[in-house]
């Protein structure tokens, strides 16, 4: 596959250690034609050195066309695979095209691309293989409904116990992976609701996780995909997967492939 070179020079604001990395913005999108162009433009404005790849997870609207027109590379799933499949496809793209870091940004504009440097910092400093942007580390104007907050807290508790480090936001989709995490997740990524399990999987492979505080914008168009009944199913499924995962044997750390 040949890739287009990004002509724009790196803006002076970009940290030279970040500029030295081949960096990919990975945007999973399902029916986001209204917001996707804005997300891509914001990422480019914040750091023109990012290549943007949109994983169109079987959208029924014009998400793919809009994203392409906005200058992103678009990978289209023939049908909807769910967020886990979309993210994994993006990470496989990152692996196959030899990127150093892949930053996952939601297609619905709830993440602020200006915060990407914050998310990359622990990777540059060699402190993390996966960095998760947490909504609950003090920058918080984000206030979910009580029922969801309880679920989020419970999952944070359980995951913190499993990975023996404090984790505050297990479901955040604003995250960055380095080469090791990309290699791991490209070959093994959870299904259905993957964010929580991915953190534990990372730990079981002895890769490092760091959380950094981020803002969360309120959702513009569209509601959360997780409704009341689904959240019951969600909790049960995630807890089951975490429990069974405890009894799986994992290989020792993945080597940097190459």
């Amino acid at each position, binding site marked *: 596959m040949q890739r287009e070179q990004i002509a724009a020079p790196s803006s002076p604001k970009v940290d030279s250690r970040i500029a030295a990395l081949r960096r990919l913005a990975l945007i999973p999108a399902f029916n986001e034609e209204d917001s996707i162009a804005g997300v891509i433009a914001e990422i480019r404005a914040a750091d023109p050195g990012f290549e943007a790849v949109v994983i169109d997870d079987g959208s029924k609207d014009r998400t793919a066309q809009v994203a392409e027109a906005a200058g992103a590379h678009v990978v289209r799933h023939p049908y909807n695979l769910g967020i886990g499949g979309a993210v994994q496809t993006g990470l496989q793209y990152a692996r196959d095209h030899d990127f150093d870091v892949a930053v996952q940004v939601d297609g619905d504009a709830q993440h602020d691309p200006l915060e990407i440097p914050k998310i990359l910092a622990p990777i540059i400093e060699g402190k993390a293989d996966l960095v998760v942007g947490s909504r609950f580390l003090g920058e918080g104007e984000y206030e979910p409904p009580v029922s969801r907050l309880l679920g989020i807290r419970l999952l944070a508790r359980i995951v913190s116990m499993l990975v023996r480090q404090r984790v505050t936001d297990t479901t955040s989709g604003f995250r960055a992976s380095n080469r090791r995490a990309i290699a791991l997740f490209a070959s093994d990524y959870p*299904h259905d609701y993957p964010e929580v399990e991915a953190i534990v999987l990372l730990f079981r492979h002895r890769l490092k996780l760091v959380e950094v505080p981020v803002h969360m914008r309120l959702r513009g168009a569209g509601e959360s995909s997780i409704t009341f009944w689904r959240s019951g199913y969600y909790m*049960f499924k995630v807890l*089951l*997967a975490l429990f069974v995962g405890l*009894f799986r044997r994992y290989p020792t750390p993945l080597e940097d492939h190459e």
Partner: protein
Amino acid sequence: MTPFRVSIVAAIAALLLLFAIFELIRSRRLQERYAMLWLLTGIVILILGLWRGLLSTIADAVGIAYPPSALFVLAALFILLLLLHYSTVISALADQNRILAQRLALLESRLEEERPGG
């Protein structure tokens, strides 16, 4: 008939079922989303096995004179639902399979066209 012994046997069977499901998930031969129905089944059998009165209560409530009949009715209904569920799953898989085949065929024909001298 010794209800106690029946309870024990039913409970052991349920536990074996639960363990088999667990092992299938662990070895990645069964995805969690499909395992949940089976786990529910195992748990219901376990509860009915240990809590003898429950079946009679259910039978009374729906007007079935002979409690074991209620068990058969419940089991048959559940199996029917499970089969219906799998029919929908198979339908989805068949659809996806068709789409994949179409995509692949179109991709192949495009590669064929682009091959120099082809």
